[in-house]
């Protein structure tokens, strides 16, 4: 195999798959990138068996063939090469030669035959989704994904389409770590497959990679399912992620319906106050206190090793006085992804889940469980 490719192009291709290749060395082949030179293009593939990506790039192919090499090392090499055309060729016994100007590298690869099977995707089975919509929804939910790997069914985002009365498909994304929950929703144009109507769990890592794809540019993406994987396609590259095989908990029952004590705050001001108060809440004495009454909100925190802090915010509130303690991090996470200028906080009592929603918006809802007073 031999191909010639522009350095910047090759670098971009390798950069894209750095997040996907396996960091642990349990299976060396998964740390490698598969390079396939076809008659017309270069195919770059990486997978850790959970998330995989395959992209096609234009290259000047001298001889077709394929090889795998360490994705990380190749990226490091290409990154430091002079800004010229790169000549990449294979030698005997899976050796690879990389030439660029007067630089030459010989590195050892692994046989492409060992590389895991990577599915081909047919475009017909995919449906269109707006990149910006997906991006916003991931942003509003990914912060609450559970990182405790023993709770594997929470290690992702639950995605489900609900058909509304007017026939519009509403996509919901839900994440929870057992202490808080986040729901984003958005309307889809067109039809969806049966998988989304039933609901699927998209893995955490796949979500983060998907977010990167949506970060690149706007427009439309193709989304769909293949075997037990979700597929996302943009232009000449597509990504597959194996769905989390598990039951997502019934989240509707933890969304409070009787939180009648509502207070509306300016998001920016409130975030700053929480951040200030959180300075004194240590690992050991986590949490900040909100005391809400007719006079406003009193936010306070104390830390026996440092001291205490207090701040008052003026708000309109006509409900019963309520005191509630939260992990400051949980509040800040929600506030940082809410898009409106003001947010509503809805409480029932100091030990029940509280709701935070952007003012006059249906697209986002966060539930936070308080801490003991």
């Amino acid at each position, binding site marked *: 195999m031999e191909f010639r490719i522009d350095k910047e192009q090759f670098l971009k291709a390798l950069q894209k798959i750095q997040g996907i290749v396996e960091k642990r060395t349990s299976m060396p082949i998964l740390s490698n990138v598969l390079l396939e030179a076809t008659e017309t293009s270069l195919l770059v593939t990486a997978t850790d068996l959970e998330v995989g990506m395959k992209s096609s790039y234009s290259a000047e192919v001298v001889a077709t063939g394929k090889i795998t090499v360490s994705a990380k090392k190749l990226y490091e090499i290409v990154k430091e090469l002079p800004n010229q055309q790169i000549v990449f060729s294979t030698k005997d016994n899976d050796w690879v030669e990389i030439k660029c100007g007067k630089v030459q590298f010989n590195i050892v690869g692994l046989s492409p035959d060992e590389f895991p099977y990577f599915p081909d995707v047919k475009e017909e089975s995919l449906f269109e989704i707006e990149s910006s919509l997906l991006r916003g929804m991931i942003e509003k939910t990914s912060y609450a994904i559970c990182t405790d790997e023993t709770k594997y069914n929470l290690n992702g985002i639950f995605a489900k389409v609900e058909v509304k009365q007017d026939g519009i498909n509403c996509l919901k994304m839900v994440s929870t770590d*057992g*202490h808080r929950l986040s729901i984003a929703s958005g309307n889809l144009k067109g039809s969806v497959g049966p998988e989304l109507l039933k609901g699927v769990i998209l893995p955490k890592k796949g979500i983060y990679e998907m977010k990167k794809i949506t970060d690149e540019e706007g427009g439309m993406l193709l989304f769909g399912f293949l075997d037990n994987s979700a597929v996302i396609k943009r232009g000449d590259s597509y990504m597959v992620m194996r769905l989390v095989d598990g039951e997502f908990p019934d989240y509707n*029952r933890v969304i409070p319906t009787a939180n009648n004590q509502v207070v509306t705050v300016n998001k920016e001001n409130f975030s700053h106050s929480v951040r200030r108060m959180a300075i004194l809440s240590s690992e*050991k*004495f*986590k949490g900040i206190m909100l005391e809400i009454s007719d006079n406003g909100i009193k936010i306070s925190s104390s830390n026996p090793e440092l001291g205490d802090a207090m701040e008052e915010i003026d708000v309109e509130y006509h409900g019963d006085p309520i005191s509630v303690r939260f*992990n400051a991090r949980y509040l800040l996470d929600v506030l940082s992804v809410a898009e409106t200028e003001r947010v509503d906080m809805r409480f029932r009592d100091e*030990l029940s889940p509280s709701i935070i929603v952007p003012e006059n918006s249906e697209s986002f809802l966060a539930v936070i*469980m308080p*801490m003991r007073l």
Partner: protein
Amino acid sequence: MERIIMHIDMNAFFASVEQQSNPALRGKPIAVTGSDSRTVILTASYEARAFGVKTGLTTWEARQKCPDLILVPTNNRLYTHVSSQIMKILHDYTPLVEVFSIDEAFMDITGSVSMFGSLERICYLIKSRISARFGITCSIGIAPNKLLAKLASEMKKPDGLTIIRNEDVSRTLEHMPIVELCGIGRKMAAKLALYSIRTCGELGRYPAERLKMRFGIVGEKLHQMGLGIDDSPVIPAEEAEEVKSVGHSMTLKRDIRERADILRYLLQLSEMVGRRARRYGVWGKTVHLTVRYADFTTFGKQGSQPHHINLSEEIYLAAVKILDSLELQHPVRLLGIRLTNLQHQTSQLPLFPEEQTRLKLTEAMDKVNNRHGDFTVMFASLLDQQEKGSHVISPAWRPEGIRNVAVA
């Protein structure tokens, strides 16, 4: 200003308490043993010591030395009670009381002497009050620092009073074997013997630089110990260091090898550890499992948890996971579980109802057991368990702490 430090040590504490609470035992050779049949002598009365019965002997060995020996199973609750009462008495003479163990304490009485007249009077008052109330004698050592005070109290037992004044220090230490110093064990003594250091005098004269080269920071400390210098303050319980771990271990009634049997003990230990952690409001991120085989080979393994835990079932599951990663070669004699990497937290409530139920259930169990005694409400799989409860002296004499004194 020169400090006046007192070390007070109850003589044959457990045995003395037993003899006082049961007049039939007074004047007789008795020994307090662990509560099951397989433990060793914890303390022997002075009558028994005359026969050579000492701490650490198996009951069989002790009987060989003293056929009339009366064995009394340990009564931790009683000792703890007496200990805490004695510590209360000590607080009448200075607030600077450092409870060193259940039967030992350091006191800084520098500022108290003028209030009570003289050193001797303070000692007399303490001794007579403890003796009148509990019938227990104690040995008191007084010196300019903790190291020497402890040494002094050891010098005359029982019922001693030894004062080491500043001018006596070098004379006292000159021929004192180094193992008598608190902090130098047999292993360290053996290492120092290689340098021909056997007495404190020799230790003090040995060049500090060479000790430092051989033992690092400890070398400097050793040098000072040899000279009888010790600047460490008497630290009252409230200021004592934070606890680093919560643990329990138990020697089993018989050696076991069946997984099911081991699991039952692990559940029981998990409940004991969990309950104590919850009582003190701490969560731990690491669980340690200790296993001792019948031949006393002891080893342990630890597992890090994804988040901080303190529910009994979480501790149990973590311990089982560790157990399953071990290949047990021999029958098991002792099992222990320890929770470390502790964190105090205001508890974050769980969102999902089933998790909340779990929490509430545990809280309800704890409430009942706090009121009616350990294991009043328990896991059903523990119903058949023969021996329940703690073989540990609860840290009642230090109500704020979680110090763990393992007995047996």
